[in-house]
C-alpha cells in the first residue's frame, strides 16, 4: 500500500471550510499532550487559552480590542497573498501608521474632536502606505524581492519608533520613561459601549471585511487580483499589468496596517512606548491564512487568534505559563492550516505499488517527458 496525492481539478470547497476548523481542534489536542509532557495541567491550560475568553463575558471586550488590528491588517495582507505578492512587513507599516497618528496628536497639542481624530487615522493610513511603497517601488523598478525588503524595513521602523519615543517625542512629564505623552481624552477614538474599552476601531474591523468581500467578489480589481494570483500567464495575456498588481496589493496592505496602527494607538493604547511593536503584523499573517484569504474568514480567524491572546493571559495567572506560550498555539494552527492546503488541492489515494520508491518513480516520469 502506498499513499498517493492526486491533484483535484478544482480546490475542494468542503476542505476549504473544514480544514481551518480541524486545524484549531488539532492544535488544542496537541496542546494538551505537549503541556502534560512538560508537567503542566494540559487540559486546564488549553481550556484557559481557547475557551475561557468565550465563557467569561468580561473578557469579550479584550477579545474585541485584540481582534480589531489583527482583522484589519490581515484583510490587507490577504489581497496581496492572493496575488502572490508577499508583504511580510505589515508590522513595520503598523508601527509607522501609529507613529504618524501620534505625530498628528502631538502637533494638535490640546486640540481634539472628530477632525483631529480623522486626520490621525488618515495620517496612519498614509504612513503605512508610504512605508509599503518602498518595497513596492523596489520590486517593480529593480525586481527586489519584496519578502526580504519589507521584512528588513520592519526593523528599521522599530528603531525609528524607539528613537522617537525615547528622544524627540518623549513625554516631558513621564518620569524619563521612553513613551509619548498620553492623548487628550478628546483626541481618542469614541467608546461605543459605555463602561467598556470597545472603541470605534472595533466597528471598523467588523465592517471592513464586508467591504473587502464586495470589492473582491464584484469589482474588476478583485477579479484582477484573483486572476493574477491563480493564473499569472492568463493575467498577462488578459492585459492585467503585473507591476500594477504589485503596487495595489502592497499599498492596500500598507494602508490597512497603518490604519490598524493608528486605531490601536488612538483607540486602545493612547500612548506609544517601546512595547508597541507587539507582533500583530506577523500574527496577522496567520490570521490571513487561517481565514483562507477570504474577508469573512479573516474576520472569524481574527477573533480566534484574539481569543488565544486573551486566553494566554488567563493561563498566565491560572497555570503559571509564560505569555509567549500562546505563540505555540498560534504557530501550531498556522502549521496545520498550511499543511492542510495539501488536502484542499489534492485528494489522498491509497494505491498498491509496493516496489518503486515514489521519488524514483517521480524522477523517471519527469525525465521521460
Amino acid at each position, binding site marked *: 500500500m502506498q499513499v498517493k496525492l492526486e491533484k483535484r481539478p478544482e480546490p475542494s470547497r468542503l476542505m476549504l471550510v473544514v480544514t481551518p476548523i480541524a486545524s484549531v481542534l488539532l492544535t488544542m489536542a496537541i496542546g494538551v499532550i505537549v503541556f502534560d509532557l512538560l508537567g503542566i495541567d494540559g487540559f486546564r491550560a488549553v481550556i484557559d487559552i481557547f475557551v475561557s475568553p468565550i465563557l467569561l463575558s468580561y473578557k469579550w471586550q479584550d477579545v474585541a480590542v485584540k481582534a480589531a488590528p489583527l482583522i484589519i491588517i490581515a484583510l490587507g495582507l490577504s489581497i496581496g497573498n492572493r496575488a502572490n505578492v508577499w508583504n511580510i512587513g505589515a508590522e513595520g507599516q503598523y508601527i509607522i501608521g501609529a507613529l504618524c497618528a501620534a505625530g498628528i496628536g502631538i502637533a494638535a497639542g490640546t486640540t481634539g474632536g472628530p477632525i483631529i481624530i480623522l486626520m490621525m487615522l488618515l495620517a496612519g493610513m498614509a504612513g503605512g502606505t508610504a512605508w509599503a511603497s518602498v518595497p513596492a517601488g523596489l520590486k517593480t523598478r529593480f525586481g527586489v524581492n519584496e519578502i526580504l525588503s519589507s521584512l528588513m524595513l520592519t526593523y528599521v521602523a522599530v528603531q525609528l519608533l524607539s528613537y522617537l519615543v525615547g528622544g524627540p517625542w518623549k513625554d516631558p512629564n513621564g518620569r524619563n520613561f521612553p513613551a509619548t505623552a498620553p492623548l487628550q481624552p478628546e483626541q481618542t477614538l469614541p467608546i461605543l459601549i459605555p463602561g467598556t474599552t470597545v472603541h470605534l476601531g472595533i466597528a471598523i474591523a467588523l465592517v471592513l471585511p464586508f467591504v473587502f468581500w464586495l470589492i473582491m467578489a464584484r469589482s474588476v480589481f478583485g477579479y484582477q487580483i484573483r486572476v493574477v494570483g491563480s493564473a499569472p500567464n492568463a493575467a498577462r495575456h488578459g492585459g492585467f499589468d503585473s507591476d500594477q498588481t504589485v503596487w495595489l496589493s502592497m499599498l492596500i496592505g500598507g494602508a490597512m496596517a497603518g490604519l490598524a496602527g493608528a486605531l490601536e494607538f488612538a483607540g486602545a493604547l493612547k500612548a506609544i512606548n517601546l512595547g508597541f511593536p507587539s507582533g500583530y503584523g506577523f500574527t496577522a499573517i496567520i490570521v490571513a491564512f487561517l481565514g483562507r484569504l477570504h474577508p469573512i474568514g479573516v474576520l472569524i480567524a481574527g477573533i480566534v487568534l484574539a481569543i488565544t491572546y486573551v486566553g494566554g493571559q488567563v493561563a498566565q495567572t491560572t497555570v503559571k505559563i509564560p505569555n509567549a506560550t500562546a505563540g505555540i498555539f498560534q504557530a501550531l494552527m*498556522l502549521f496545520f492550516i498550511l499543511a492542510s492546503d495539501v488536502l484542499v488541492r489534492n485528494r489522498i489515494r491509497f494505491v498498491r505499488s509496493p516496489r518503486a520508491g515514489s521519488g524514483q518513480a517521480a524522477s523517471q516520469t519527469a525525465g521521460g517527458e
Partner: protein
Amino acid sequence: MNWDFLILAIITIVGISTPILLAGLGELVVEKSGILNLGVEGMMLVGAISGFAINVYSGNPWVGVAGAAGAGALSGLLFGFFVLTLRSNQVATGLALTIFGTGLSSLIGLSFVGRIVPQFGSVFPPELARDPVLKVVFGYSPIVYFALLMVVLVAWFLKSTRSGLILRAVGENDLSAHSIGYNVIGVRYAAIAFGGAMAGIGGAYFSLVITPMWAERMTAGRGWIALALVVFASWKAPRLLAGAYFFGILMWLELNAKAGGLSFIPGAQAIPSQFWAAMPYVMTVVVLTLISMRNRAGLNAPACLGKPFLPAT
C-alpha cells in the same frame, strides 16, 4: 584611542558577531538550496534553551552545544516536513517557526531561570588566552573558532565539492536537477537540518557564552540580522564573514551609543543608538537593490529561493 581599548573592542565585536555568523552560515546553505527559512530566530531560541538545559543536566558545555545543534536541527526538520513534504508556504511556515520557537523556549525555560551553568574552558594555554595583547587572537570561546572553521568548510563545500554543486543546482533550478535524477527534497532536508543546527549553536552562544544564564527572548532579534546578513553577503560564505564583523561593528557602536560612550569618534555622540541599530537592515536593503539592479549572474539570489518545488508528477 589606546591599545587596551582597541583590544577590548575587537574582542567584543568578534563575540557579538559570532551568533549571526553561525546562524547566517546555516541560512546561507539553506537559501543556496532554494529554501527561505524565516524561522532563524525561533531556531536560535530553541538552541539557546536546549543548550542551556542540557548543560545544566550534563554539567558539560560541549554536550550542551551538541544538544543545541540537535534541537536546532530538529526544529529545522519540523519546518522541512511542512515545507518539503506537505509543500506548505515557506514564508508563512518560517514565520510560524519563529513564533513557535519563541513560545516553546519560554515555556521550557520557566524552570531554568536563575540557574547557573558550567563554562567552557579556554582552547589555548591560559598564558596565551589571558595575555593582555595575545588574547585578541587566543582568548575566545571555542565556539568562535568553530564558527571560523565552519566559514572555511562551508565555502569549500559549496565551491569545490560535488555535493555542494548539487546543492547549488537544486537551488538554481530544482526541476532540472530533479529531471536528471537528483533527490531535490532530500538535498533540501539536509540543508535545512544543517541550517537548524547552526542556528541552534548560534543561539547557544547567547545562553552559554555571552550571558551564561537563561532569559526569555534572549537572542533579541539577532536571527533577523542573520537573515539580513545572508542577503548582505550576496549568498557568499567569505563575504558572510566580512559582513558578520561589519554588522558586529555596527552592533558594537549601538551598544556604546546606548551607554553614551562614542566620544572617541568626533561628532558621533550626536547620532542616536537607534541609527546604528537600523543600519544593518538599511544597508541590506541597499545591497539587495544593488544586486537586483546589476542582475549579474552569480551575484543574485538563488533562482528558486522561496518558490515551491512542483515536479510534473
